[in-house]
């Protein structure tokens, strides 16, 4: 039987951390999961200025959107994990990071749900490189 609905997943789904939207965010991004139409939006406040580039750190982050238990729990865990991390560190995160944060195994379809939040955050970070 699948055991993806562990207590930590259900907790983070029912009471997600960092849920909401930052006013005066430095960067914002929204991304959808093409399989189900779910959407996650993130807003981040960073330390320093543009000059510090990838050394800028995440001062605060919020996310909102609609999603299944996997995508919401993942967004809760991922946003919590990256607080205080530098943009360089964030860009180095990958699916293993997310899976180990969640502590569960996922089928390819549900993996898309789990990775949506990290993908959204990384897309947001990429904006700072071009902006």
């Amino acid at each position, binding site marked *: 039987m*699948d055991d993806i*609905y562990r207590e930590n997943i259900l907790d983070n789904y029912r009471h997600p951390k960092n849920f909401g939207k930052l006013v005066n965010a430095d960067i914002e991004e929204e991304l959808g999961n093409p399989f*189900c*139409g*779910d959407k996650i939006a993130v807003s981040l406040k960073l330390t320093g200025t543009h000059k510090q580039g990838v050394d800028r750190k995440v001062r605060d982050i919020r996310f909102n959107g*609609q999603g*299944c*238990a996997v995508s919401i729990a993942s967004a809760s865990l991922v946003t919590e994990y990256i607080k205080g991390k530098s943009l360089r560190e964030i860009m180095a995160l990958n699916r293993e990071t997310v899976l180990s944060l969640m502590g569960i195994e996922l089928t390819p379809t549900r993996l898309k*749900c789990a990775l949506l939040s990290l993908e959204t955050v990384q897309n947001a970070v990429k904006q700072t490189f071009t902006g």
Partner: protein
Amino acid sequence: MLDTKKIIPDFPILGKKINGKPLIYLDSTASSLKPAQVIRAMDDYYQRYGVNIFRGVYKLSETATEKYESARSTVASFIGSKEANEIIFVRNATEAVNLVAATWGEVNVDSQSNIISTVMEHHANIVPWQQLVKRKNAKLNYLDITEEGRLQPGQIENKINVNTRLIALTYVSNVLGTINPVAKIIKIIKEINPGVKILVDAAQAVPHMKIDVNNLGADFLVFSGHKMLGPTGIGVLWAKGEIMKDLPPYQTGGDMIREVYLDRTVFNDIPHRFEAGTPHIAGAIGLAEAVRYLDSLGMDKVRRHEEELAEYALSNLTGMKEITVYGPHTAGDRAAVVAFNAKGVHPHDMAQILDRDNICIRSGHHCAMPLHTRLQIPASCRASFYIYNTKKDVDLLIEGILKAKIFFE
């Protein structure tokens, strides 16, 4: 109802257990299961005469050619057509729509033109038209639905004008289950503007009810083999011969030619003109066998079986607390596909919890994002029923939904 005790043993997958439990397959709208008869027919081709068609005078090739072409006739008469050459074999319903857009659309749509589709379409009947109007600088308009999930009456008269070239509409919605009164709609359209061509997406109709292209009035009709007990990789475009016979080809190469010179080519007649290259021979043979299987049950009986299941599922689901059922709540104009949402349970999670009991439902937007946007929901759960499903399957679904609701409470 159909005698499911006789039907179920024909489907090898239904005899298998997963983790010791039987399979409750409620996703035939996405793809149906395949009976042993179909699998055997395809196997027989590969085992006994698996060679190319049209190219050999040797016996095996003649046999293969004969089977492939008789599959075309079988499929033609299944939808009431006497003209086998009006059946063009393609990969699936999606390719059939693309073929029409790339050939008929290329010639007949210009910057003055408009095309009309509906908000309840599968992406297969929206995106190819979006791309065509983009290429041609034409317009694409949509018919809206009522709160009940039926096409809004009176809109056709308002949207159609002298520049309307095509109406692309689904016979049965793969989410709402709505059976559109297609023949009536087409009659209205042709009265207003006889020049308008009609493409009917019958992907959810041909597998489930008797279709007769003579009474329908459509110009193009598309469907997929894999949703009607047939194999994947084979689909059908039925198109009136008079429309297709002079159109430019879709793809070019072998088999679709009459004569080739180094500087020019004379194209073959329909339907071969639109079937470039070696086709899915085994697929066509499998589809013909699927058609024979459905014919042996009788399409009117298939429809009655599904109507009863739809009725039973609807009455159970609409009676549940905190469950929203989309689409018409009357089984009479509804296919046996029911989309719903349970408060507090995301469709993905519902599908995952049901999968613990091997109950297979679909979750997501079911390739109908504009429809979900119209319903103001990101996603839904969808259960669909076919000839091998029973009322017991509905009971198990309801039990599963209750379990999921308790789990996420």
